[in-house]
Structure formats: structure tokens, C-alpha cells
């Protein structure tokens, strides 16, 4: 059969393609239906975040952080705010810490719902996508009553949060947790254990753990490969060490450890763990003034910090250099999706062309964060 080999074909996927999750262009080198190589081309959504940040004061950078990973804005602000607080030596009131953690975990659930829904949508499961978006809508409603915005919040400020939680916040969050637990079961019946879905994702795009670590993978992409690593546990920040929760990892339940199904399923399990954290935190919010530690003038000492937090997509690190003025000298964002996307060529060689869609969905990329 060897003499039948024809010359390879270059297939262009994107930048406008529904399953590239934004403006991503993939150059696929094809041998028939088999992928020989993938070359991602990024930068279509580059908005000069790092250059802008140098011209802004420290608090003015926060809305720009929102716009990096627009599906998990709270998590982005969270990391930036802690980094600047560490640089300035600000102690944040306990009440603020609790509010931040609850909001960040709600955001994690909301973000995972999009990841799960679109992952299914890409391979043809339309209904679960709608289920996910109905549930996400409930979280966005909670965000809306808290800070007035549904997507880009500017809620977490340096030293505090922009406003206190409303009176019915606790009740709304508890109602959501109660409502959402059975919905995860529905989702599992609809999508996770659906035979067609398993056939499309199990044993596809297998990422071995050593490759994942060397390629800088983090978040569910790393944990899907069986590496039990979560910055909330292994390098704790804020008050995450006070809560009791597990770190789910991929176990190769339906195929090989580190395949698309494992990466998908880690997100489903993580939503349950986030609910556990929210439940433990919601009744213990101490009294206090959320604006008491917000500095009038943010002017950190001369110095620098690399600080990383666990966003829904993985390790988001901010490398901030201060020269003692009101503007940062350098703000570098190490975005998790950037690193997770960079390993795509290593896991899709030899896959079929339809599998690349499942692989992109399982990596859960957000182009706003990759291109910054």
C-alpha cells in the first residue's frame, strides 16, 4: 500500500470557525484524513494588554485583566489583586477573602459550564449546551445583583471588593447550590456517559503526564493526565487552606489516562468540589467593611513579584515589576490557555481530522487570554 501514498495537503481551519472557540487559525498538514502536524497561528485578538498596563495606574489595570479571559473575569482580577497586595504588603479583611473565594468558585462553575457545553456542542451534542447555559445564567444573575455586570465585573479591587454583597446574596447562592447538584447528574446522563460522546472523546488526544509537565500544561488539562496538582492546595493563597475539598484527576475510566474524556470529566468533578467550597464558606462570612483596606493611592515599593493563582483554565501568573511610581514598569500575564494550546501539535499527530475539534474543545481555550 505504501506506493499509494499521495502528497500531503495543507488544510486551513479558522480564523473564523465555530469550533476554534474564537479567532484561532490552525494550519493542518493532512495525509488523507490523518493529521500529520498542526501549526497554530495566534494573535488575531491581540489587544496589547501588557503595553496598556504600563500606561495605566495599578487599579486601572483591573478592567483590562477582565478582558483577557472573558469567561472567568473574577479569577483574572483575583490573581492581579493579590499580586499587587503582596507587593504593597496589604492585609485584606477576612470578609473580603470569603467574598472573593465564593465569587471565584462561582466563576469556576460558570466557566466550566461553558467549557463542557461547547465541548459537547463541537462534536454534535446540542441539548447539553443549552442545559449548561441555563445554569450559567443563574450564576450570572448572582453576579449581576452583586456588582451590576454580567461578564466583565471590575469587582475585585486592590485591598477589597468594589461593593459589599447584597442582602439576599447568601440565600441566592444557597438556592443555586441546592438547584445545581441534581443538574450535574442530569448532565452526566445526557452527555458524560453518552455512548456517542465517549466514542468521540475516549482515547483521543492522549496527553501523557511527563509531556504535560514539560509542555507547561496546567489546570484541568494537567489534572486530566493524572497529575494531582492544584495551586489552591499545593501553593495555597487567600483562604483556600481553610476548606475541605478534593482535587479530581483523570483516571482513564473510559480509555487512556489523559485523553479528551478525562480532561472533560475533571471539569465536571471540579464543579462539585467548587460547590463544596461555596457551601463551607457561605455561612461563615464574617462581618466587616469591604473597603477598609482599599488604599487611596496605590504606589507599591520598588520591587517585583511573580504570583500565580488557579483559574478555571489553570495557572495564571502575573509578573509585575514596580519602579516605585503609580504606573507598573512591567506587567506580564502568564496565561494558562497560551501554554495549553502550545502543546496541541504534540497530542494531535496521527488523529483524524474530526478529532481535532474534540481536542480543541477539551483544552478549553479562550483566545482573549492567549493573545492578550
Amino acid at each position, binding site marked *: 500500500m505504501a506506493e499509494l501514498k499521495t502528497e500531503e495537503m495543507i488544510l486551513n481551519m479558522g480564523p473564523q470557525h465555530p469550533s476554534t472557540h474564537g479567532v484561532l487559525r490552525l494550519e493542518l498538514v493532512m495525509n488523507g484524513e490523518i493529521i500529520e502536524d498542526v501549526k497554530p497561528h495566534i494573535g488575531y485578538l491581540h489587544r496589547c494588554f*501588557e503595553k496598556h498596563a504600563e500606561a495605566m495606574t495599578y487599579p486601572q489595570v483591573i478592567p483590562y485583566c477582565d478582558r483577557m479571559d472573558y469567561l472567568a473575569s473574577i479569577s483574572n482580577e483575583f490573581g492581579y489583586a493579590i499580586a499587587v497586595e503582596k507587593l504593597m504588603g496589604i492585609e485584606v479583611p477576612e470578609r473580603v477573602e470569603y467574598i472573593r473565594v465564593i465569587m471565584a468558585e462561582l466563576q469556576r462553575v460558570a466557566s466550566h459550564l461553558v467549557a463542557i457545553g461547547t465541548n459537547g456542542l463541537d462534536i454534535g451534542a446540542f441539548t447539553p449546551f443549552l442545559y449548561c447555559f441555563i445554569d450559567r445564567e443563574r450564576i450570572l444573575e448572582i453576579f449581576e445583583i452583586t456588582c451590576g455586570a454580567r461578564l466583565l465585573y471590575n469587582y475585585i479591587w486592590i485591598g477589597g471588593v468594589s461593593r459589599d454583597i447584597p442582602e439576599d446574596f447568601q440565600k441566592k447562592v444557597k438556592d443555586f447550590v441546592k438547584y445545581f447538584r441534581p443538574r450535574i447528574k442530569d448532565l452526566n446522563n445526557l452527555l458524560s456517559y453518552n455512548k456517542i460522546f465517549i466514542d468521540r472523546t475516549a482515547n483521543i488526544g492522549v496527553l501523557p503526564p511527563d509531556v504535560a509537565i514539560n509542555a507547561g500544561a496546567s489546570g484541568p488539562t494537567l489534572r486530566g493526565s493524572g497529575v494531582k496538582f492544584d495551586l489552591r492546595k499545593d501553593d495555597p493563597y487567600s483562604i483556600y487552606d481553610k476548606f475541605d475539598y478534593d482535587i479530581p484527576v483523570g483516571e482513564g475510566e473510559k480509555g487512556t489516562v489523559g485523553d479528551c474524556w478525562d480532561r472533560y470529566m475533571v471539569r465536571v468533578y471540579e464543579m462539585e468540589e467548587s460547590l463544596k467550597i461555596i457551601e463551607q464558606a457561605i455561612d461563615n462570612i464574617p462581618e466587616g467593611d469591604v473597603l477598609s483596606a482599599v488604599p487611596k493611592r496605590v504606589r507599591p515599593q520598588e520591587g*517585583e513579584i*511573580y504570583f500565580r493563582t488557579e483559574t478555571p483554565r489553570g495557572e495564571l501568573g502575573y509578573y509585575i515589576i514596580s519602579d516605585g511610581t503609580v504606573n507598573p514598569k*512591567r506587567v506580564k500575564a502568564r496565561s494558562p490557555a*497560551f*501554554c495549553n494550546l502550545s502543546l496541541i501539535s504534540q497530542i494531535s499527530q496521527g488523529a483524524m481530522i474530526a478529532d481535532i475539534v474534540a481536542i480543541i474543545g477539551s483544552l478549553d481555550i479562550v483566545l482573549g487570554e492567549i493573545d*492578550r
Partner: protein
Amino acid sequence: MDISEILSILNSVFEKETIELKTDIPVEPFLIIAPSKINAISLFLRDEERLQFDFLSSLSGVDYDEENLAVVYNLYSFVHKHKLMIKVIVPKNEPNVKTVSNIWTTTDWHEREAYDLFGIVFEDHPDLRRILLPDDWEGYPLRKDYKVQEFYKGMKVRY
């Protein structure tokens, strides 16, 4: 393991002049390494039994001062749970640094980004070209003395 222990292990293998410890800048101490040695030292950091820095968190380009650029490496070890920050400082008129993409594959894109935005040239990098900006963009935007080009393909850039 803290940074002084890491330094003493490095000093036992490499020449003392190539590594310098900085502790006076808050918030955390870091090492400054000679540009020609970064590849050899990185390989040692990853493979040495007591260090095992198997994960590169971040690689950032920095406009260091009037004459110099810098590359900052943030390393982490999954095995020993310790961190390390390394800096390599190179002059602006000859910004050449040895690549570490053969040691951590994640640096492939990180180094392309530093090249794209700062013009730092990573020697022996397998595919060094712009990543975020168009291939025919002029200049390196994150340098402090950057002036944006007036026209790009006949379109006015500043409006």
C-alpha cells in the same frame, strides 16, 4: 529548598562568576546568570536529583534599564515543591540568549513572544518568528523607546 542552598549546589558545579544572588529587591530573591550559560545551567536545574525543576511557569522579557534587556525565568519543581526565579541580562545592541526550548518545550512559544515584543534573539531556537504580531510588523512594542510605525500596509496605525 531555599535559594541559598540552590546557589551552593550550582556553585559546586559551575564557575562562581556566572551566577550572582540578589536578595535586596523585594519581594523575593533571584539569581542572575550569564547569557552564555543559561542553557547548561537550566539543563542541570532540571536533571539534578536534589533540584528537579521540571516545570517552567513563565518566561518574560523585560526592558531592564537604558542599555539592557532581561529574560526572567520562573521555575517550579513538582517533586520538591520549590520555586526559583532566574534572570539573564543582555545588552540592547546585542540581545542574544541561548534558547532553553530543548529543555522545557513550553518555552518554544514563550521565547517567540519575548522575541516578538522585545526583540530578544534566542539562539538555536527551532522556529523563531513573531507570534502575536504580524510577521512584517516593525519594531518591538514593549521596549520603552518604541515608536509605532506610521503606516501598516497602507493603513494609518495611529488614529
